[in-house]
């Protein structure tokens, strides 16, 4: 059909899964999907959706919103939600589930995930919430994940200066000092993000949590079993501070960290002369590289390494979007079913910026070697952990954690910040 990006039957796609979809006849069925993706991302999700429409005859309407959180809450509370919502954070989905605003997925889905997703159980856990009656059930289905433990750099700059990609945290710190010693600035860090200012710092802290504490501590932390003001957490915050609060380490000095927009901060890598040599950010960031930048050549990334001495393996921090049914219908159920099919993943994989834990997909469709490389990081991970702030209650993970980090970057004491976050957490229990 005119919409289909890749002609059925051609290439390495799992076309059989596409053909299988045709058994469903959903002509006349309308399915509305609300998600946070806009612009190019919207086009990408739509390109996937077209295959579902083509196969089943359903009419799917995806709409993106820059204020997704607000809108889904209003729509769900008011009783006119879309059929399916795509939550960027599991926290909000859990919240809606507890108010009875989500429809549980069929019981067999959990099993399917366990079988078909790498580390399936953890994805099931992340998508399982308590409903209005308190009973736990699987509500959320993860589709499209991001890797966050990445450090971006310009290979030619490293080459010019004679630096090597560090393999351990110790090497990374040594390299950092080396760059300073060479009279240059190692890092670009920007926490600015308008109304969400501060969130990039939470990723840093989470990555550090995983690098100095056990995964169990991390899990406990996200549920507040390990209090926020525990020395372990404070240590992680200070690890972040070791980079961000050192005037020599960050471009513009520590004072600029909080106000520099995260979208502007990678620009320093590409300046002449370079303003910095490294930038820790998730897999989406190339969108904000200068126009024409070719990832893999002009810029590249390496795994944000772990301490060799700590023996915590190679932890990877990631995130993903949770799909949930907010307004049950035959079409909605069918669409969730579609998300299980390899073709739903491959179509996006074949374009850009899509990682998936789905083990049944044909990774040959990746046209972008860097994405393949990211998948490599994902696969090499000894530990995969979901973004902690997304798991915390909204008031923390999308509230005081952000603001606390901004305060910390601004010079406040880590213990003080942690204590104040903890006290808010307690107030909402």
């Amino acid at each position, binding site marked *: 059909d005119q919409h289909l990006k890749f002609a059925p039957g051609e290439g390495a796609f799992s076309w059989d899964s596409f053909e299988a979809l045709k058994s469903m006849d959903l002509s006349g069925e309308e399915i509305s999907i609300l998600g946070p993706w806009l612009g190019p991302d919207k086009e990408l999700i739509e390109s996937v959706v077209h295959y579902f429409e083509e196969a089943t005859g359903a009419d799917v309407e995806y709409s993106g919103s820059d*204020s997704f*959180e*607000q809108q889904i*809450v209003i729509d769900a509370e008011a009783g006119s939600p879309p059929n399916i919502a795509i939550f960027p*954070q599991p*926290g*909000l989905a*859990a*919240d809606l589930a*507890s*108010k009875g605003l989500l429809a549980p997925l069929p019981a067999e889905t959990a099993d399917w995930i366990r079988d078909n997703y790498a580390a399936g159980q953890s994805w099931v856990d992340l998508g399982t919430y308590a409903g209005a009656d308190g009973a736990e059930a699987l509500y959320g289905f993860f589709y499209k994940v991001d890797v966050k433990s990445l450090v971006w750099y310009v290979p030619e700059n490293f080459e010019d200066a004679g630096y090597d990609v560090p393999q351990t945290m110790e090497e990374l710190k040594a390299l950092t000092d080396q760059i300073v010693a060479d009279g240059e*600035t190692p890092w670009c860090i920007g926490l600015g993000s*308008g*109304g*969400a*200012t*501060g969130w990039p710092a939470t990723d840093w802290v989470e990555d550090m949590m995983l690098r100095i504490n056990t995964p169990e501590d991390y899990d406990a932390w996200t549920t507040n079993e390990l209090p926020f003001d525990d020395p372990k957490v404070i240590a992680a915050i200070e690890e972040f501070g070791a980079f961000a609060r050192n005037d020599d380490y*960050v*471009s*513009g*000095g520590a*004072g*600029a960290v*909080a*106000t*520099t*927009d995260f979208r502007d901060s990678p*620009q*320093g890598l590409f*300046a002449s002369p370079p*303003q910095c040599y490294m930038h820790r950010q998730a897999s989406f960031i190339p969108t904000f590289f200068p126009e024409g930048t070719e990832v893999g050549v002009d810029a590249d990334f390496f795994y944000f390494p772990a301490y060799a001495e700590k023996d915590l393996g190679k932890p990877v921090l990631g995130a993903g979007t949770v799909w949930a049914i907010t307004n049950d219908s035959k079409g909605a159920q069918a669409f969730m079913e579609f998300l299980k099919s390899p073709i739903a993943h491959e179509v996006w994989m074949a374009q850009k910026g899509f990682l998936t834990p789905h083990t049944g997909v044909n990774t040959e469709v990746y046209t972008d070697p860097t994405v393949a490389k990211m998948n490599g990081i994902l696969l090499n991970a000894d530990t995969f952990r979901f973004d902690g702030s997304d798991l*915390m*209650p*909204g*008031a*923390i*993970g*999308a*509230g005081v954690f*952000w*603001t606390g980090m*901004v*305060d910390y970057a*601004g010079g406040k004491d880590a213990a003080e910040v942690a204590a*104040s976050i903890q006290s808010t957490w307690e*107030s*909402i229990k």
Partner: protein
Amino acid sequence: MDQLLFAVSTIIVGVFGCVAYFYFSNILLDRIYPAKGPNAGANINKANAIRPWLFVLPALLVLSLYLVYPVFSTFFLSMRDTRGEFVGVDNYVWLAGDDKFRESLGNNLLWLVIVPAASTFFGLVAAGLTDRIKWGSVAQSLIFMPMAISFVGASVIWKFIYDYRGDNQGEQIGLLNAIVEGLGGTAQTWITMPFWNNIFLMIILIWIQTGFAMVILSAALKGISEETIEAAYLDGASPLQIFFKIKIPQIWGTIAVVWTTITVTVLKVFDIVFAMTNGQWGTQVLANLMYDWMFRGSPDFGRGSAIVMVIMVLVTPVMIWNISNAHKENR
């Protein structure tokens, strides 16, 4: 094309429906209480007692449905927790002890003092001055422009003013820092400067609201009887004196309206703080705090609603002032 047709026809139906209501309800009233016959006098009085209500009815209906009812539901929500269970005044108790709330309250009071005063002042000056010159209407539309720029646009605009670049982050792209550096100073992170960052945020709202004040005040200035101004000229008053002693007192009522409106806008100000700092660095305000609790992450309508109730209590003095004004006018 279909939609154009639909749009046009709905516009016509909507607007005419509105007019028809007023027209026919009036006629109906006159039918019910005809101004003729044996008890014409009584009828007329009854009709006259009812008629004002006919006029305000649609407004009252819409208002109570779209504003009063939400206010009440907000009030009830403010006494519930996230699970919807009744918790009495717990949310208010929590509020009283919350640092962010205290900070917001303090900031809001600051906003309430500075923004309405400054916007009204600049609006008045702009209205007064542009009134006297040939290219006044062009000048007015330029000053008015910020009002017309969508909010997303405005937030970018001010990024280009307040942006800060550290030592080796390349040249400044924020105008303010470029000027400061041009004058030999050191660049500042304006939006994190304690206390002053509040002022920098207020400047944005002042920049926007001045256009509002200007348009309303300009209309009022134009309504002033010209002969009184001529008389004042003859009395030897300078243009400045005329402005302050003749024009301003005559539009005092309108100034009060503008002031009130901006005050209320300030209480609701949210977008600016949200987009520029999200209330960090000590710039939190009530409306943004409310938004945080209402829609961030996992919504807590109870607390959000409690904050809304506080905002509404804050407006009470303004309301009382308006009541007394309306009384005075009606003698």
